[in-house]
């Protein structure tokens, strides 16, 4: 199980939980599992989401691996100049 830290604005879709656990081995599986468990998250993920895994910020890398030991944070999608 992967422990996912959500941003606090998402708590209203997860019964108040800011940290949720899902079964997943990649970022893509993790996002799918989150939407399955908490459908209210879907439009947020459709907007694009940035994921930080063990301190490394990744964007649009659904194949990136996650494990039970990973520190995973979701952030709203970031753009650069």
């Amino acid at each position, binding site marked *: 199980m992967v422990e996912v830290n959500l941003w606090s*604005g998402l708590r209203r879709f997860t019964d108040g939980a800011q940290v949720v656990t899902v079964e997943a081995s990649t970022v893509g599986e993790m996002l799918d599992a989150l939407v399955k468990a908490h459908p209210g998250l879907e439009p947020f993920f459709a907007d694009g989401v940035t994921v930080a895994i063990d301190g*490394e*910020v*990744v964007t*649009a890398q659904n194949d990136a691996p996650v494990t039970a030991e990973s*520190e995973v944070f979701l952030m709203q999608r970031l*753009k*650069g*100049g």
Partner: protein
Amino acid sequence: MPKDELKAGYKLIGTRPNRPDGLDKVTGRARYGADFSVPNMLWAAVVRSPHAHAKILKIDASKALALPGVKAVVTRADLPTGLSGEDLNLQDNTLAGDVALYDGHAVAAVAATSALIAQDAARLIEVEYEVLPHVIDVDDAMRMDAPVVQEGAADHTVPEGSPPNVARCLDFGHGDVEAGFAEADLVMENTYRTEATHQGYIEPHACVGQLGEDGKGEMWVCTQGHWYIRRMSAAVLGIEAAQLRVTPSEIGGGFGGKTTIFSEPIALALSRKAGGRPVKLVMSRAEVLRATGPTASASMDVKIGMKKDGTMTAASAVFRMQGGAFVGMSPVGEALSCAFACYNIPAIHHEGYEVLANRPKAAAYRAPGSPMAAFAVESLVDEMCRALGLDPIEVRLKNGAREGTKASYGPKYKQIGLVETLEAARAHPNYQVKLGPNQGRGVASGFWFNHGGETSVSVALGEDGTVTVSIGTPDIGGLRASVGLMTAETYGIPYEDVRVNVVETGALGVNEPTHGSRATFANGKALVEAANQTIKEMCKRAAKKWGIEPEAVEWADGAARPAGDNAGKFPPMTIGEIAAGMGASGGPIAGHHEVTMGGAGASFGTHVVDVEVDPETGRTTILRYLVVQDAGRAIHPAYVEGQYQGGAAQGIGWALNEEYVYGKDGRLQNPVFLDYRVPVASDLPMIDTVIVEVPNPGHPYGVRGVGETGITPPLPAVANAVAAATGARIRHLPLSPPKVLAAMKASRDG
């Protein structure tokens, strides 16, 4: 000042060879966007709204079409319908639909046989408007009774009953903020404002577009990302992306503003309507300022709790940012994520609002959102340091983020270099200079995430053993030099034996633009993979010739060699020898790598500035300026220093003079460089730089992007210095002379 455990002792990385584009640029041979011309070409001119907000009742082009030499006119009616989301926003911005949303919004365009005829014809296109109420200021746009910029723009994050121009809300954070404030000896809260500024690239947007009735087309364009130009233009025009071949020109600055489209599809639409004749479209400076994306304006509330010894106990921020008339362009999320990124604070809360206003569609600008956030947070930190009598660098060192610190935006940092930049700034001679009357010193730190992104690179050996590298991101800040150095280092060959080409969209897989300070990081990491493919193949060819196993061959200093005495005694086989015989030994040798790149290391910097303020005029002079920033590994230090200096110069302009000034009619009052005041060489001293090197473990050579962080600290650093010099704290940029003078008078009057 390297600080790493990675392999050092490079032969080429860290050296300063001549830039590969130098001769072309000093002799005028380099071809920029407006330099492209092709036979049978037409010229475009664009009709733009003179109103900040207006219904378009009628467009009559009959007089323009009757003018000899005019070949086509396009309006929104010539573009396909049925788009949604960001594609619809791009189309709406390319040519207005029923409503013009800002002063300068494109309404129609004409193509003619000369630029003068096109301009005359544009003036003959008659547009009938019904003027609507408008809103410009971000706080005005937040009012419940503000004129509505776009009905129904709010997304799922906006609670019912919110002001009508709020398009998106967000909040995030961690810890018990109220308990943190209760624990503090001093809690301060202030509101800070910044105005919209433009990237101010010297080269205006320019392109030549050609599109036939068969949907096949070509474009030569000044851009930071030609795959984005292809995808966005294809979406706006309803054509297939693969049928549009896009070739980038040299680029005279972009800073984020050329990561998207503005008028490019207009050239293609005109070409299609003119029977496929190519159309050149070059924006004037006024068009660039009125109709291409500046950055957001911001209104920001920040609150911080601090103990007497400088320890920060809690922080909160509420940011309001407008990004023009279209959803998704305000960098409020990025700004909040960067706001407290330099600090280790146990409890933080962020809240943000994206707001629409009748202004041009904002674009990315160098660390989008971070400079504004830094202005608010680093100004307040400075105010608290002065209130408590603490040294600003010591307070930043006490609270500064380190490896393992939980970042304000959530995760724990890997290896980062903020503390090293603070220590280097403290040790620099500039920090010791004694100041005179009317002079003040300001300190601030800054942060940017950096980015990897979609990257595709290829390398190919020439028959003489030289190497050609094909990259898909324009060379905006020394990319060809840095890629050339990393290529030469990887092969162990001279820098001069490498040619790096920026190639068109047909030659590689998709590449993101040069944004997120990704170009040297991502291209370098990909090319090492691609080069290692060819090195493996060269070792295989040598092994075959020597009759040994490929695993028994190693690569060093530009040649294949037996891995040890057991592998046999053979003289090194050089890259030149292998390449000369590659046709007969198995065929051409080339490598490629495609990836969505991760591992971009976070970037931190610290700036120190000394200013003198003229008490009679309020004019601020920059006496000395120091940039200290972590580059991870400086591949070509001269270019790294250039990025540091460029970021500082732009940030100083933002702090002191630059702003979009609108009249009561909602029209931009300063759409030329004479009135939109960017710093010129005589405004600035030589900007001192210190390159800190805390290598990024996510890159084979330790590279961190260096392009963006440098613009982040100048806004607060300059404001802090002016406050020190005058005793007057100004919380609304720019610090223009009249504003400084008024603040000094108010301060004196008590």
